[in-house]
């Protein structure tokens, strides 16, 4: 792999910075990792560890658990790099899907012990934090702005699902809405977000 300064640091955001000539494409890194290329994996780690930890910590909230799950996610990326299929989505989405899925699985198993009341209370706090979570950089600003273009209901449904790990049925309960409505709001919210961000 190419020499990269600051190898020890993770990139905070913006897969777009990968467009710099010297920096290999994320897709290519994953392909190399699939062949057991350890240097490529180091570069992939540096590129994605911040994304992974950030996502996992939003969902789990517990920093120690988040670190543990981050490591699981990066291990899974190493193990299953050969399963990445560019036809099914971008490399970023692949990494983030693994990260989010793991975080959600973990938070649900943690929650299975909690009472419904506690869950409801946590949910409100979780959601209030969402807007704070997305305010640091330009990219965050862009996501924040796009979240702002959603209706309040769409934003709540998407936020409670993505950042707090609730199922649509749980979101329906929390918001006292029919599950069908929540499903639709999630879909509409994501599509609006996609259009606003110009991804896909």
């Amino acid at each position, binding site marked *: 792999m190419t020499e990269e300064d600051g190898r020890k640091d993770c*990139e905070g955001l913006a897969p777009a910075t990968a467009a710099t000539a010297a920096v290999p494409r994320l897709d290519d890194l994953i392909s190399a990792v699939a062949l057991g290329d350890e240097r490529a994996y180091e570069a992939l*780690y540096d590129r994605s560890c911040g994304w992974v930890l*950030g996502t996992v910590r939003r969902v789990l909230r517990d920093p120690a658990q988040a670190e543990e799950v981050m490591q699981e996610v990066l291990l899974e990326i190493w193990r299953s790099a050969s399963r990445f299929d560019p036809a099914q*989505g971008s490399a*970023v989405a692949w990494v983030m899907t693994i990260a989010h899925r793991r975080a*959600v699985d973990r938070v649900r198993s943690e929650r299975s012990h909690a009472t419904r009341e506690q869950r409801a209370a946590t949910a409100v706090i979780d959601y209030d934090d969402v807007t704070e979570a*997305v305010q640091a950089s330009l990219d965050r600003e862009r996501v924040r702005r796009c979240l702002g273009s959603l209706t309040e209901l769409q934003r709540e449904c998407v936020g409670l*699902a993505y950042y707090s790990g609730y*199922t649509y049925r749980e979101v329906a309960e929390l918001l006292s809405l029919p599950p069908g409505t929540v499903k639709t709001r999630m879909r509409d919210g994501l599509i609006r977000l996609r259009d606003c961000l110009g991804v896909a």
Partner: protein
Amino acid sequence: MSASRHELHTLAGPYALDAVSDADRAGFATHLSECEQCREDVREMREAAARLGLAASVMPRPDLREQTLRAAFASAQLAPVVPAAAPSPPGLLAEKDLVSEAQNSPGSPADTSAPEPGAAAASGVTGWQRLRGRAGAMRPPARISLAAAAVLAAVAAVLGGVTSSALRQLDRSKQQDHLIAAVLSAPDRVMVTAPVMTGGTATLIMSHQAGAAVFTAHGLVALPSTEGYEIWLMGPTGDRAAGMVTPQAGGMAGPEVVRGLRPGDMVGVTVEPARGASHPTSVLVVVFKPRP
């Protein structure tokens, strides 16, 4: 059917956000394999959802890097997915070979160096089997640890054939070789063979001393490219994903090293989306249970 189909369509949004129960997820994953529009919808929505995650980025502690890299490099990687192919003659031959070998040596002495601790029993028809004569590969530790390559060849022989691509895959990871050697040479190793509910036969060699098991199978039913067989460690503290296995020609799969085996763990296999699940979402097609 069309009503439930419509129901399934509306799950695309929740699915892209992982906002579905395990049961919904499994149902929708099946639906996805036959609904191109849904796949495209999910793909696009996941791109958007990924940005929600990117926006939350935070830097991990620097020391996690070394730790994570080390753990990864010590872990086996999944073999690339080979485009689904009809079972080929070599695979079938290998399978037949194994069967006839077993028939030819029904009374062959069990490997006396393999103790029979209260380690494992397979649920299913075949049940618990001790290592048979064909397992000349099951040698004492000193000999087994000589060369990883020899061990691999031995594993191939024991298990009735391993595709060359599987061997190449193994070759890539010395750690995996070592772990296979450790399992095969562990004094407490046990070997269990059981039928797979959906077809085929699975074999597990496990060692609590090595903290690992080696899984292989033959005659597994080919799955659509969107699905795979996932191995699980199922213990008192919950289920842990332990790797995906992809059947090659003739339904051969593995050897796959199952790491992190703890006392009391069951080892099970389910059919999951190809990228793997974090918890089993469908019925176990085979399970190896610890003996009471």
